[in-house]
Structures are given as structure tokens and as C-alpha cells.
């Protein structure tokens, strides 16, 4: 009887959504860990390329561990097979991947296992390369904002439609500035490595 009741409870799990801005992987990992300590287990997140960072949480089971380790890797995996390979390597080593598709360049892993390696990287250079991949993605975003801005300007010149021009300027400025800001933040961390 008692079991049944707890089953019912778990089917109506409380959920919570959060939006937060991060430019530091370590700070993001620590925030996710502090959320877990408050009883919220990460259940999903947005790909972060264009939107803000969005997170979905579920109430953690009280039987579950009291603390959980979260680690973030940033790596664009183009092919589905690469993603499967990558994911199974981490899973074998005790780290669960939360993203459901290969479209995500940001990979959040978690583990409760005491025997899992204490981190997903065992070399300082790996942290440096993670920043480098993120910086490259930021610059790609800036470049595509600039191209978008040029296309809108060209459309305005040809069709004299000012709405297009305003939209283009907005995309170019907001997207481009965001990309540059993120780039500089990650570059600062990148330069702390030898």
C-alpha cells in the first residue's frame, strides 16, 4: 500500500523552468550542482546558440543521492554516429549525457557514481580546448549575424522596405554584440591556461 502511494507521487513530479546567462562553464556546473542540493535535478536544457540558456528541472527523489556532479563539454558533433559514439564513451565511464540530439554543441553530463572519474577531463589542456571550441562558435555566430545584416541591407536597397532594414540592424547589433561579449568572456578564461 505504501509503495503504491509513492509511485503515484513520482508520476506527478514537480517541474521548474529557469533561464540564466552563463559565460563560464565552471560557474554553470556549480549552479546546476547547487540546484540539485536544493532538490532540483536537471532534466533538459536548450541548445543556447541563439536563445538564452534555458533549463528544465524535476524534483529529485529523496532516495536519490544528496549531491550530484555536473560537467559540461562543448563540442560540435556533426554526424549522428559521432554523437552516439561520444555519448557511449562517457556513459561507459559513468557519465550520463542529458542532450537528446546531436544538434547540441553543449553537452551536460552528470554522475552520482563515486567511482566515476572525478572529472570529464584529466588534462589541463582539455579545459583550454573546450574554451577554444566555444570561442570559435561565438565568432561563427558573429559572422552569420554580419551576413544576415548585409542581406537585410541589400534587400532594403533593392525593395526600399524600411522594416527589413530595422530588423537587419537589430539582428546584426544584438546578435553580433552578444557573440562578441561571449567570445571575450571565454577568451579571458582561455588565457588563464598555459
Amino acid at each position, binding site marked *: 500500500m505504501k509503495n503504491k502511494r509513492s509511485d503515484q507521487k513520482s508520476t506527478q513530479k514537480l517541474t521548474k523552468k529557469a533561464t540564466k546567462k552563463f559565460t563560464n562553464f565552471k560557474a554553470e556546473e556549480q549552479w546546476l550542482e547547487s540546484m540539485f542540493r536544493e532538490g532540483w535535478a536537471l532534466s533538459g536544457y536548450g541548445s543556447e546558440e541563439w536563445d538564452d540558456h534555458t533549463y528544465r528541472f524535476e524534483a529529485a527523489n529523496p532516495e536519490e543521492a544528496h549531491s550530484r556532479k555536473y*560537467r559540461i563539454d562543448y563540442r560540435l558533433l556533426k554526424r549522428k554516429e559521432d554523437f552516439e559514439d561520444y555519448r557511449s*564513451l562517457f556513459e*561507459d565511464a559513468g557519465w550520463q549525457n542529458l542532450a537528446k540530439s546531436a544538434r547540441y554543441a553543449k553537452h551536460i553530463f552528470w554522475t552520482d557514481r563515486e567511482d566515476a572519474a572525478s572529472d*570529464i577531463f584529466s*588534462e589541463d589542456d*582539455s579545459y583550454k580546448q573546450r574554451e577554444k571550441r566555444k570561442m570559435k562558435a561565438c565568432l561563427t555566430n558573429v559572422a552569420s549575424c554580419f551576413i544576415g545584416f548585409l542581406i537585410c541591407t541589400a534587400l532594403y536597397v533593392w525593395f526600399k522596405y524600411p522594416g527589413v532594414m530595422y530588423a537587419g540592424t537589430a539582428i546584426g547589433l544584438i546578435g553580433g554584440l552578444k557573440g562578441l561579449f561571449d567570445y571575450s568572456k571565454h577568451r579571458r578564461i582561455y588565457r588563464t591556461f598555459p
Partner: protein
Amino acid sequence: MQQLSESTYLVLLALRQEASHGYGIIKRIEEVSEGTFLLAPGTLYGVLNNLQKQKLIETVERERGSRNKTTYRITAEGERVLSTEIDRIRRLIRFTEKTWIKKERQDEE
């Protein structure tokens, strides 16, 4: 030729012994070194990627439709780079031991 990182060196050594999939490499290195060398998955993935780009390792052709994990093996170039690195380490150790022994003798006198 740039000096190999410790992880890169260990991965090449493990693959020189036997072709293997990613986690198999981590396990073999851990077992043979009796827990001294622990490679984390994120670091290993980066190392495998770099080695593949430099053509020092390659993937073994998968059977069609099989869901097996990718298996890696060392290439002839990989073996060459590895043996150059082993020679370098041997020289370093010989030199270290010679000077170390010299220092100990001096201390005794």
C-alpha cells in the same frame, strides 16, 4: 615533430598493443598501470580526434548495420612516431639516472 602529451603517448601505446574502442583504451591503461594513469572520457575523445586528424590512428571498418562502437587502430606512421617518442624518453631516463647516481655518490663522499 612536437613532443606528445602524456595522454597521447599512453593512447598510442595502448593501441600499439591492441586495436580497441574508446572505453577499452581507458580501461587497458588503467589496468596495466594499476590505477596510476586514469584518462577521463572528455580528454580521451579529444586525443582520439587529434590522432585521427594527424593520421596516427585510424578507425577499423565497421560491419554494415552493426551498432558496435568505433574501434581504433594505430597506423604505420603512428608506430613510427611512437617509437621516436620511446627513444626520446629512454634517452631522458638514461641521462636522469646517470646524473642522479653521480649526485648520490658525491653526497656519500
